[in-house]
């Protein structure tokens, strides 16, 4: 008497087109194509290939979904889940791929005459367990893929919200917006230091006007950034420390061993002087020419 695995493999073998057709129709019913993210032809190929791998696995490894023989099945399923997750499918939509295969297999089993009730029950149970486990696998892979997306987006947000700006030759500004957590600070620090190297900056102005609160940890992070820049031969000025923050830092006993100025403008003025420059008023002919340029720009 054939075991459950052999029966399932034979079912797939003999009733492939019927199973496939039913499975596809159930997936479509569940809305697999409605979102427009995947085309019917693609879905058919995915389903047919998956069915084939499943059959092979059954022959070689039986009904245990964790068996080594089913590794290709699990891999393929992981790939499909991952791509669905990245495309924006919902977890249910992704899991439906697996779960909707149950019915067609049960139906095929029914049509296949000549099995006693006990054996049929055993096969149905085997199919159920097998596909349930695969269904859980899709959920896990889906979850992890979504987490990857979140991490990547966090990094992008960090990049966007802390651009390093060149104010003048040798002078950089780093306007920080929002709170500085460990990971973000790490990223900001690396970005600033690399930019110092790339532009040959002598001074970096870190403006924290946009930082709502500075706790001990944030202050430490800032300090580390300043120390690292100094080790590389660049100096830092911190600007935009609001009165409340100054008070908090004193109360917390934080010592920021670095020059700090109230505004970015003040810090810029110092930076210019330190790099041997000054800003002076235009005189005579040059002044006249500049006035004319301004008038033209205003459309007069």
């Amino acid at each position: 008497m054939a075991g459950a695995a052999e029966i399932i493999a034979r079912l797939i073998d003999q009733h492939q087109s019927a199973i496939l057709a039913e499975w596809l129709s159930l997936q479509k019913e569940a809305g697999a194509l409605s979102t427009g993210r995947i085309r019917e032809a693609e879905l058919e190929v995915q389903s047919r290939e998956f069915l084939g791998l499943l059959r092979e696995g059954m022959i070689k490894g039986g009904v245990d979904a964790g068996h080594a023989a089913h590794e290709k099945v699990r891999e393929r399923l992981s790939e499909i889940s991952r791509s669905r997750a990245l495309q924006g499918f919902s977890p249910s939509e992704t899991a439906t791929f697996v779960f909707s295969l149950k019915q067609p297999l049960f139906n095929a089993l029914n049509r296949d005459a000549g099995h006693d009730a006990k054996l049929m029950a055993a096969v149905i149970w085997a199919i159920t367990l097998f596909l349930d486990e695969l269904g859980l696998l899709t959920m896990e892979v889906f979850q992890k893929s979504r987490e990857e997306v979140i991490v990547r987006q966090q990094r992008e947000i960090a990049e966007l919200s802390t651009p390093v700006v060149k104010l003048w030759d040798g002078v950089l500004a780093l306007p920080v917006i929002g709170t500085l957590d460990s990971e973000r600070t790490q990223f900001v620090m690396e970005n600033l230091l690399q930019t110092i190297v790339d532009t040959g900056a002598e001074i970096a102005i870190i403006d924290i006007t946009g930082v709502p609160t500075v706790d001990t940890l944030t202050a430490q992070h800032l300090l580390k950034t300043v120390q690292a820049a100094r080790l590389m031969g660049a100096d830092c000025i911190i600007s935009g420390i609001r009165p409340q923050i100054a008070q908090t830092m004193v109360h917390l006993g934080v010592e920021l061993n670095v020059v700090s100025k109230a505004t970015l403008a003040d810090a810029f003025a110092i930076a210019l002087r330190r790099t041997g420059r000054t800003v002076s008023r235009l005189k005579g002919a040059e002044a006249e020419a500049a006035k004319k340029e301004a008038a033209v720009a205003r459309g007069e």
Partner: protein
Amino acid sequence: MATKRTERVDIRSSEDVVRVRQQVRVLAVEAGLSLVDQTKIVTAASELARNTIDYGGGGEAMLEVLEDGRRRGVRLTFADQGPGIADIEQALRDGFTSGGGLGLGLGGARRLANEFSIESTVGVGTKVSITRWKA
């Protein structure tokens, strides 16, 4: 948690410290660590390898690439049969002030790693283990 790769390095001379650094770099790259994290773990390895020679009378390093679910990491274990450390807390707190003491090796290595553990018995030896995971 699985160990995907293990390397052992004997630490007897300062050339071995260089060898440890190079090997740890290879493993750190294999674990997919970022450049900064690679630098941190290799530097920590250098400190601990030196300690093994300077205070442990030589020993052995076991370098492993770990895989825990989906994340990868590097675990380094330095073991010696030296005099051991009487006061571990003190050793961890010591600053870079020269002249006696265990310098910055231990404390520094701990700060550079995600996980740190140390076993030491006076007269028997010391075993220090650090792990750095891919962020």
